[in-house]
């Protein structure tokens, strides 16, 4: 029995396949990085969300190639694939439920907690970095100073 196990996986997964998957993974990573650079300083919130969605789809594609080819799951017996992948399908529910919960919590707090809402709208002076911004901070008017202290007390 044991010797057949050792040789079972040899079909599929030659050096050419490894090369192919390496190139696919590299290209997907480069596309992700290009999208990431493009997103820097992007104004439109809708476009930002679309790019983030694309990056997440590319991330799942990378995960598929790593698990399927590098970890060889695609060439295993279907029952093994099922025992691994089916339990992981729980993540679909976890992600939807928890992110929706977080979002709902934020909406509730914004509606019913004026302090939370206020704290998230007050702009803070950039903290002094090596003393270069120290002079600018001292010129700030008293109202921003008070709010800054309030924020610092909170944490």
């Amino acid at each position, binding site marked *: 029995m044991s010797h057949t196990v050792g040789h079972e996986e040899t079909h599929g997964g030659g050096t050419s396949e490894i090369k192919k998957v390496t190139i696919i993974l590299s290209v997907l990573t480069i596309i992700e990085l290009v999208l990431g650079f493009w997103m820097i300083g992007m104004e439109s919130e809708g476009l930002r969300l679309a790019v983030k969605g694309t*990056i997440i789809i590319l991330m799942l594609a990378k995960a598929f190639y790593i698990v399927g080819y590098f970890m060889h799951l695609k060439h295993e017996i279907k029952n093994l694939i099922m025992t691994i992948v089916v339990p992981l399908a729980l993540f679909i529910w976890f992600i939807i439920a928890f992110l929706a919960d977080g979002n709902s919590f934020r909406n509730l707090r914004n509606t019913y907690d004026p302090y939370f809402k206020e704290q998230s709208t007050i702009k803070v002076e950039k903290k002094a970095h090596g003393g270069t911004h120290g002079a600018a901070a001292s010129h700030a008017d008293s109202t921003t100073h008070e709010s800054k202290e309030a924020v610092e007390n909170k944490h």
Partner: protein
Amino acid sequence: MATTTTATTTKLWGGGKSPFNVEYGKLMMWYFLMSDAFTFGAFLISYGTIRFSTNGWPDPNEVFKSFPFAPEGMNAPLVFVSIMTFILIISSVTMVLAVHAGHNMDKKGVVKNLVWTIIGGLAFLGCQAWEWNHLHHEGAWWGSNPFLNADGTASSTNFTNYFFTITGFHGFHVFSGVIINIVMLIMTLMDKFEQRGHYLMIEKAGLYWHFVDLVWVFVFTCFYLV
């Protein structure tokens, strides 16, 4: 076959053949990795939930913009982390090549590729150590967050807490992976696998190493890109 007849009479698993056609250790490694995936998934989903429940969040391009030996105040977002990502992808490729060489009972190929994988893992850990050290010098640590939200409002410590916890947990996995690979290298050099007649142990170590790379794909996306 005898097993099929017993199965039809009792309708219970009679044993006698391997249903998944993989050896026991490899199957258990898969189940371990599945449980580890739930651990990392729980961490990342918790991070996402907290992020969704706050109005502002620091901009990763503002936080992770430094590079070793670069002049102070240089603005190079994503550059350093993309190097880390490629290091891990390449080390994953050399690990596949080591597993492949193991299939062909090619000891020299296994040793060569395992050494490269270990070097890649150590390089990644070095990069992470530099990044942590740099962020620590900027005042970021568990419970302390010097970075403002992207919209200029005050941020909470959630950002740094999650960053250090999750990348730390991943870094610990990389560290264990390097140790496992070093053990595999020593065992290969001692001809343990030649005596056994197969290199299946390398495959299990390989599965773990690819999982570490897989987790980085998610961590990288969640913390640096999105």
